[in-house]
């Protein structure tokens, strides 16, 4: 990233709503756009992607946004693909601790953001039985899909209640990505529903994420 990029600070005036669209890291105060972060200021004219049914007037103007120096998204939102570790399984649901955001864990949750006192920290989340697979959801068994310690890729489907986010793995590319066998060995995905321990040759059933 070029170091001569303009830096904007919170409260810095970036234009009016007449001239620009408001982007990430900015806010509007009586018709004027101000920065709300300290970071690199970017102005993009590529607004065509946001064209689905919105007011047409917003399309022509450039949108200003400010990105954090770390570039990181800090919180999971609905639709965010996350990576986490299974902390508990029960008959109806599996508990997941979200440790990184993005399909490949691009944004690691900083330790400071983890919940205090929990195992390993991270944002607590739940994968309900009916959200594990897309098909035959009534036949899914949680215990045959996840084991404690599995690393799982999932998508946030709801902010949930005060305790946990709700996540789903009901897509091909979602599910267990890393698993350790009962003998403590790293396993390979063998099929869409099985991991195999290379040392013992035994298979264990999982909801396997389709390799990218």
């Amino acid at each position, binding site marked *: 990233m070029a170091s001569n990029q303009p830096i904007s600070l919170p409260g810095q005036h970036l234009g009016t709503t007449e001239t620009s669209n408001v982007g990430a890291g900015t806010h509007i105060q009586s018709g004027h756009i101000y920065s709300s972060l300290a970071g690199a200021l970017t102005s993009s004219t590529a607004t065509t992607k946001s064209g689905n049914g919105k007011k047409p007037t917003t399309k022509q103007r450039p949108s200003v946004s400010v990105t954090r120096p770390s570039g990181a998204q800090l919180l999971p939102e609905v639709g965010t693909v996350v990576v986490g570790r299974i902390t508990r399984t029960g008959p109806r649901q599996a508990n997941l601790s979200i440790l990184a955001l993005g399909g490949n864990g691009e944004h690691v*949750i900083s330790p400071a953001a983890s919940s205090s006192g929990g195992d390993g920290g991270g944002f607590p989340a739940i994968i309900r039985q009916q959200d594990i697979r897309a098909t035959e959801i009534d036949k899914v068994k949680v215990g045959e899909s996840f084991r404690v310690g599995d690393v799982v890729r999932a998508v946030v489907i709801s902010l949930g209640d005060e305790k946990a986010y709700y996540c789903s793995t009901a897509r091909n590319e979602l599910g267990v990505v*890393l698993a350790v066998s009962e003998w403590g060995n790293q396993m390979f995905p063998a099929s869409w529903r099985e991991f195999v321990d290379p040392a013992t040759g035994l298979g264990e059933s999982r909801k396997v994420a389709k390799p990218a």
Partner: protein
Amino acid sequence: MANGMEATPMLLFSPAAFAKLTPVPFLQAHLKQPTPTRPNGRSAQAFRQPTVNTGSLTHSDGSAVVRVGNTAVVCGVRAEMLLASDIPKPPPTSAAPEHCIEELGLLVPNLELSTGCSPAHLPGNPPTSLAQSLSHRLKSLLHSSNILDINDLRIDYTEPATDPDVPDEEPKTVTKAYWTLYLDVLCIALDGNAFDAAWGAVVAALRNTLLPKAWWDVDHEGIVCSPLASEAHKLSLKDLPIPSTFAVFSTRSPLKQDEDAETWVLADPDGFEEAACKEFLTVAITQGRNGKGSILKLEKEGGRCIGATEIRQCAKLAEARWSEWEIALRGS
């Protein structure tokens, strides 16, 4: 990065993500490299360089800021007066002087982690068990190393030859009061191995401490101190005990043969390594005038992976580490 992770070729996780998701295999993969290098770039035996600054706190009689890597610790020494008449159970005069400090409780070390130094120790809660155990270990090392001289802390009064009527009735010296040293250690940033850093700060602050000249004042019936810095005296520290902490990382598991397991000893573990390890060893070394190190204290907790050989190696490393600290403390 690739080694150890070939089992899952489809993943494009960044090192940071791997470290977060699977800390133990991540650390193992690093150590398995031809030249074992830890994720923080250090070799297994490498310590972090300590830096020491003293005397920066205005309201302390002695103070120090010690930084070891990303762990930063501030220690302030506050001296207060304990009147001999207030002591409920004075130790017998015959008691060995080296036990006096402990008996009287003249050293009050407290290590505080609830300063926001780490998300695991947020304020608003009572001291965590880690904070309590660190305070206790500091106290125990202070006492067992016998670092302070009770004579530095004693305020004596020689009773004058009283009335001429009473023929010289034992013109003796009595101890009227003791200095009590409050050693408040605040961890400002925590990234593993708080004990070594905290101890360094305590020693540096004690070396920096100036106690006012104090005497028993008959008219006032109390201890009066001189405000002049020129009359104050430093503490004479007997020697310089330095602890070095090691973490033991092992792949040993109940499901495997012990022979298959690999073990590494990591000097001066950082926060990530501390979380991935279960076994720790602290060797406290002191060095006499002859330049020969001697082990003052060995503390070992958790696990059963290292034996006498490894401990001997650690002691050797700790001896080398002593010199590093000595230079850092001398420079401050």
